[in-house]
C-alpha cells in the first residue's frame, strides 16, 4: 500500500509538468478568445453610433435622388449633406453608401433610377469599383462587376468579356450577367467560348435577365453542338422560352445526347416545341430511358399526344410504376376528343383495376 502511494506521488510529479503546460495553454487560449470577443463587441458598439449617423446621411442623399425627380441633385447639396465626412478616406462610409445606392437602384426604374446613377457618378464611386476589378480577392472583383453592372456603367464591356471565363465561379457569373444586361441577347456570345459549367442557378438568373428585354433574334443552333453540356442545356431552355420552332429537329436530336441532363432538358423542351413527329421521337427513345425521364416523357405526351399514340399509352396502363400509370392515363385522356370515354371503357374491360386513376383524373378535370 505504501509503495503504491509513493509511486502515485512520483507519477503525480511527472504528469504535473506536461499537464500544467497543457492546462495553462488552454486557459490562456480561453482568456484570449474571451478578450477578443469583448473587444470586438466594444468596438462594434462604439461604431454603432457612427453608423447610425452615416446611415442618416446616405439615406438623405438617396431620398433626394429617388423622390425629388423635378430637382436634380447637385454638388452643393452633396457637400452640405456629407458635412465633414471625407469620402476618399472613409472606406466604411463609402461601402455603406454604395451598398444602399445599389439596393435602391435594384428597386426602381425610370427617372428616379437615372438620378441614382447620376448621384453615383457624381460621388465618383465608379472609380473605386473600377480599381477593384483587379483586386486579388475574388469577392472584391465579383462585387465590383456587380456594382458597375447595376449602376449601368458601360464602357467596360470588352474588359468584362475576359471575366466570363474566369476561374472563379462568382466572378464568372457576375461577368456573364453583366454582358447580358449591357448587350442583351448579343451578350450571350460568351456561350461560344465558356469552358466552365454554367450552374442551374446561373441559368435561372440569365433567363430572368433576358426576360426583362424585348425578345430579339439570336441563333441557338451552334450552342447545341457545344462540348460544354451545360451550354446545351441552357440553349434548350432558351429555345423553349423563346419558341424556336425551327430548332425542332436539333432539339429532338438532343434526346440521344450522352449526358442525361441534356436528354431531360430536351424532353421538357419538346413540351413547348413540337410537330406531329415529336411523339415518335419520344416513343423511339422511351425504353432506353430511366424512370425519371420516362415520367417526363409521358407528361410531355399529355400535351402533344394524338390518336396515333393511343396504343402506346394504353400499353403503359400495365406498367409497374403507379406514377407512370397515372400519367399515361392522363395523356390518354388528352390524346383524343373522347379520351375520357375510352379510358372508362378500358377500365371496364381490363382485368386491372384502374377505377381510382379514372376518378383522380375526373376530379382534376372538374377543378
Amino acid at each position, binding site marked *: 500500500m505504501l509503495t503504491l502511494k509513493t509511486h502515485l506521488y512520483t507519477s503525480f510529479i511527472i504528469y504535473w509538468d506536461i499537464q500544467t503546460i497543457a492546462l495553462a495553454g488552454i486557459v490562456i487560449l480561453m482568456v484570449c478568445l474571451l478578450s477578443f470577443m469583448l473587444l470586438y463587441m466594444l468596438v462594434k458598439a462604439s461604431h454603432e453610433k457612427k453608423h447610425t449617423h452615416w446611415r442618416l446621411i446616405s439615406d438623405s442623399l438617396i431620398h433626394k435622388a429617388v*423622390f425629388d425627380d423635378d430637382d436634380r441633385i447637385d454638388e452643393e447639396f452633396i457637400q452640405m449633406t456629407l458635412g465633414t465626412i471625407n469620402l476618399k478616406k472613409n472606406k466604411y462610409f463609402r461601402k455603406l453608401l454604395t451598398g444602399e445606392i445599389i439596393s435602391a437602384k435594384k428597386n426602381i426604374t425610370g427617372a428616379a433610377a437615372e438620378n441614382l446613377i447620376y448621384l453615383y457618378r457624381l460621388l465618383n464611386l465608379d472609380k473605386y469599383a473600377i480599381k477593384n476589378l483587379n483586386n486579388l480577392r475574388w469577392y472584391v472583383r465579383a462585387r465590383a462587376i456587380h456594382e458597375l453592372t447595376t449602376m449601368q456603367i458601360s464602357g467596360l464591356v470588352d474588359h468584362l468579356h475576359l471575366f466570363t471565363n474566369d476561374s472563379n465561379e462568382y466572378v464568372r457569373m457576375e461577368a456573364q450577367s453583366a454582358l447580358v444586361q449591357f448587350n442583351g441577347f448579343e451578350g450571350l456570345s460568351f456561350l461560344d467560348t465558356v469552358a466552365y459549367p454554367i450552374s442551374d442557378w446561373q441559368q435561372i438568373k440569365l433567363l430572368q435577365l433576358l426576360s426583362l428585354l424585348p425578345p430579339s433574334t439570336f441563333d441557338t443552333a451552334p450552342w447545341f453542338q457545344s462540348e460544354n453540356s451545360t451550354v446545351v442545356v441552357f440553349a434548350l431552355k432558351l429555345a423553349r422560352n423563346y419558341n424556336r420552332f425551327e430548332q425542332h429537329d436539333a432539339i429532338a436530336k438532343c434526346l440521344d445526347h450522352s449526358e442525361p441532363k441534356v436528354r431531360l432538358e430536351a424532353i421538357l423542351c419538346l413540351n413547348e416545341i413540337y410537330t406531329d413527329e415529336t411523339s415518335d421521337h419520344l416513343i423511339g427513345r422511351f425504353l432506353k430511358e430511366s424512370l425519371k425521364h420516362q415520367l417526363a416523357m409521358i407528361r410531355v405526351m399529355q400535351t402533344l399526344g394524338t390518336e396515333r399514340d393511343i396504343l402506346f399509352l394504353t400499353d403503359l396502363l400495365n406498367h409497374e410504376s403507379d406514377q407512370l400509370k397515372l400519367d399515361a392515363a392522363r395523356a390518354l385522356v388528352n390524346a383524343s376528343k373522347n379520351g375520357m370515354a375510352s379510358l372508362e371503357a378500358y377500365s371496364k374491360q381490363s382485368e386491372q383495376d384502374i377505377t381510382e386513376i379514372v376518378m383522380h383524373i375526373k376530379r382534376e378535370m372538374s377543378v
Partner: protein
Amino acid sequence: MKILVAEDDQLMVKMLEFRLKKDGHEVVITQDGRAAVAKLSEFKPDLVITDIMMPYLSGLEVVSAVKKKYPTGTPVIILSGMGQENVVLEAFQLGADDFMTKPFSPNELSVRVHRFDLTLAK
C-alpha cells in the same frame, strides 16, 4: 383618394408613401397581408396596392379579401416580382384590376393610380 398599401420591403414602402402623398392621396401603410386585411373595414380605402409575397397572408389572399368585402368597388393593384406571370394571372382571376412589375418607376405608378382616380370620379 384613400389608398391602402401592403408591402414589406422598407425602401419600397418609403417610395410608395412619398410618391402617393405627394400626389395628394391619403395613404395608410401596412407591412404584411394580415395587417392589410385588418385595416380594410376601418380605413375603407378607395384603392388597394399590394405586394404578392408578404408575411402572414399573401397578396392573393389580400385580393380575395378585398373583392369579398367590396364586390364592385375598390380596385386592387398588384406589385409583383419579375417573371411571376402565373401568379399575376391567378391574381387577375381573383379579381385584381392592374399589376406592376418590380422594379418600377414611381412616375408610372402615379399614372396608373391616377387612372383609377378618374374612373372613381365618374
